């Protein structure tokens, strides 16, 4: 089977069988990164533009490595170093990039819907590497890959997502993906950082972290940003840490073999205590490792690849 679209704009446009296809394909690519020669010729001759209109080191490095290990040629184009800040529109910048005939544009953008907008106007495959508070599909896919690797399944898993749900594209993509494959998701955060209609996306909602974590197989903590305090969503980071920080005591409420995840970058001592981040339940660095394999799978499949030929 193949993916139905040539773009990856969000989890919202993926069917469950496509999610399974990406995760299965990533299994094969995960092995490539363990070889001595960490490179396959799969995308030789293809060009990828990593178009980052919002700062990111982790996601960009992960995409870049995925591209290199697939033998694609990559070009990094970031907003700060470009004409983009000189008042050129996103569309004109993208058209200029397209004039150089890339096969993919991997877009990170601070505004929701930017990749959807480009997909309407561009010939290349658009990969959403995070758009505002909307979606971050490759993050949700690597999270699901990590959960499946550790738990052997996704269906029936109890997943708690805790933190700033309102501004989190990671939360949205994870809720969409996990509910699609039959996991039970509870989102948790202060009411000021949790949209009123969140339950309409198919998850349970609570404002008490203990309730969210109780019996969970997976506890996913989200980064809380200092600027949210400055805009009055909660009084102080100190109080936030007391009410919503994950410490060993709270983690004991989760299932015995629960795993702890975080999309990074972490605020130690705020949403997650060091003892938990570095503890035996943490799979935070595995998430990073798996990110490369999942992004290899996405790029490969968007080029029209099928699972059976992958990583050969």
């Amino acid at each position, binding site marked *: 089977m193949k993916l139905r679209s040539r773009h990856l704009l969000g989890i*919202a446009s993926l069917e469950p069988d496509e999610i399974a296809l990406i995760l299965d394909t990533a299994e094969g690519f995960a092995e490539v990164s363990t070889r001595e020669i960490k490179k396959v010729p799969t995308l030789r001759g293809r060009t990828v533009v990593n178009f980052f209109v919002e700062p990111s080191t982790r996601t960009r490095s992960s995409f870049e490595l995925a591209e290199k290990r697939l033998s694609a040629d990559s070009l990094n184009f970031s907003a700060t170093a470009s004409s983009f800040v000189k008042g050129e*529109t*996103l*569309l004109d910048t993208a058209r200029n990039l397209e004039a150089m005939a890339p096969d993919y544009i991997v877009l990170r*953008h601070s*505004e*929701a*819907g*930017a990749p*959807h*907008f480009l997909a309407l106007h561009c010939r290349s495959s658009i990969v959403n590497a995070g*758009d*505002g*508070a*909307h*979606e971050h599909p490759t993050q949700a896919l690597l999270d699901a890959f990590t959960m499946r690797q550790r738990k052997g399944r996704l269906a029936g898993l109890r997943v708690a997502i805790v933190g700033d749900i309102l501004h989190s*594209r990671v939360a*949205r993509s994870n809720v969409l993906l996990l509910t699609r494959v039959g996991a039970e998701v509870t989102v948790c955060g202060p009411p000021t950082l949790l*949209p*009123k*209609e*969140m339950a*309409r*996306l198919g998850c349970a909602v609570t404002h008490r972290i203990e309730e969210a974590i109780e019996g969970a197989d997976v506890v996913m903590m989200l980064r809380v940003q200092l600027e949210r305090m400055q805009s009055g969503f909660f009084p102080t980071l100190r109080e936030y840490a007391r009410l919503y920080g994950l410490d060993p005591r709270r983690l004991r409420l989760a299932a015995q073999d629960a795993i702890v995840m975080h999309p990074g970058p972490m605020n130690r001592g705020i949403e997650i205590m060091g003892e938990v981040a570095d503890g035996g339940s943490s799979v935070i660095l595995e998430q990073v490792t798996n990110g490369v394999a999942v992004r290899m799978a996405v790029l490969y499949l968007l080029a029209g690849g099928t699972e059976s030929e992958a990583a050969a």
Partner: protein
Amino acid sequence: MRLLLKNARVVDPASGVDGVLDVLLEDGLVSSVKPGIPARGAQVEDLEGLVVCPGFIDLHVHLREPGQEWKETVATGTRAAAAGGFTGIACMPNTVPVNDSRSVTEHILAQARAHGTVPVYPIGCVSKGQRGEELAEMGDMIEAGAKGFSDDGRCVGSSLLMRRALEYTRIFGVPVIDHCEDSVLVDGGVMNEGETATRLGLKGWPGAAEDLIVERDILLAEYTEGHVHIAHMSTARAAESVRRAKKRGVRVTCEVTPHHLVLNDEAVSEFDTNAKMNPPLRAEADRRALLEAIADRTVDAIATDHAPHHRDEKSVEFCRAPFGIVGLETAVSLCLDRLVHAGVIDLARLVELLAVGPAGILRLNKGTLRPGADADVTVLDVHREVRVDPARFFSKSTNSPFLGWKLRGAPVATVVAGRIVHDAR
């Protein structure tokens, strides 16, 4: 000059007329409405099968002149109005510079006289520079031809200024038109707060931001006995506030737009910047409440909030796109198709909303075909099938979520002061 409109169905709710009659227009006024009027040298138009109604008036148009002529001008906007079946339009003051003085009001009216297809009724600013601080020179603007006051594009944020405006406009007997939003609560939102905004990760603002100001304005109008007109009302609660206020005799009127009656916030789902406007498309429950409010007479007028923007200005990320859509050339067909043919209201009620209501709010000698009224007429073909085609727009801009829609019913001719200014029969 005499124009005789023969054999049309005449729908004139203000005089209770609905039947096949002739209408004679003479020297810019309606002269008589009855069967079998002899021609006697008049220009005769046989309108059999068509509907003749008092001319439609759009209370809420952004003509963009002076200052943003790449979006629209008085010439193109009034031409679009005529094509859309409107015989007159009120233009909002948020131009560049804003219309807060006699000179700008006079400039707009001079442009309309020189290049306009239909009359323009300028709405002046409530406050100097539209800054929301001190009252603008309302008396001077009234003398120049202003028909009402508004800081549209912005809300009159200060309750004290709103009180003073409602008191001061009593000198002239004109309305204060408010764009109702508590801007602190809006807080940079780009669409309605609700399920769709949650899914899309777009910053929403709640209907409560509108409800609060509508209720405030009603309380102030009640206290000052001024006339407040609620622009582009979009929520169920605001409609309920107006309904209750009218029952207790408050001088409050309100308008709704065709797009708030036809679309809900799910239209944003694909990040379509032509579904971005202020107030935003609301929840389905709000839309249904507005339909109820036009049927039960809570709403006085349908107005387009025609807000032209250049294609390039809308071809950007959703958050960066300006608010607003054009409406002059789609409004009447949308209303005929989605309101009249859909059975929400009858044709007479639609004429009230598009002609009688607006004429009353602006205190014009229009909105009826009674002898002595101004000879402004809108001619409809309620059965004509149309496809919304931007290539046929007279407006400079085509930012509309309705492009390609197939609709039944259309304006086919427009008569201003007894003269045919648009004919698409």
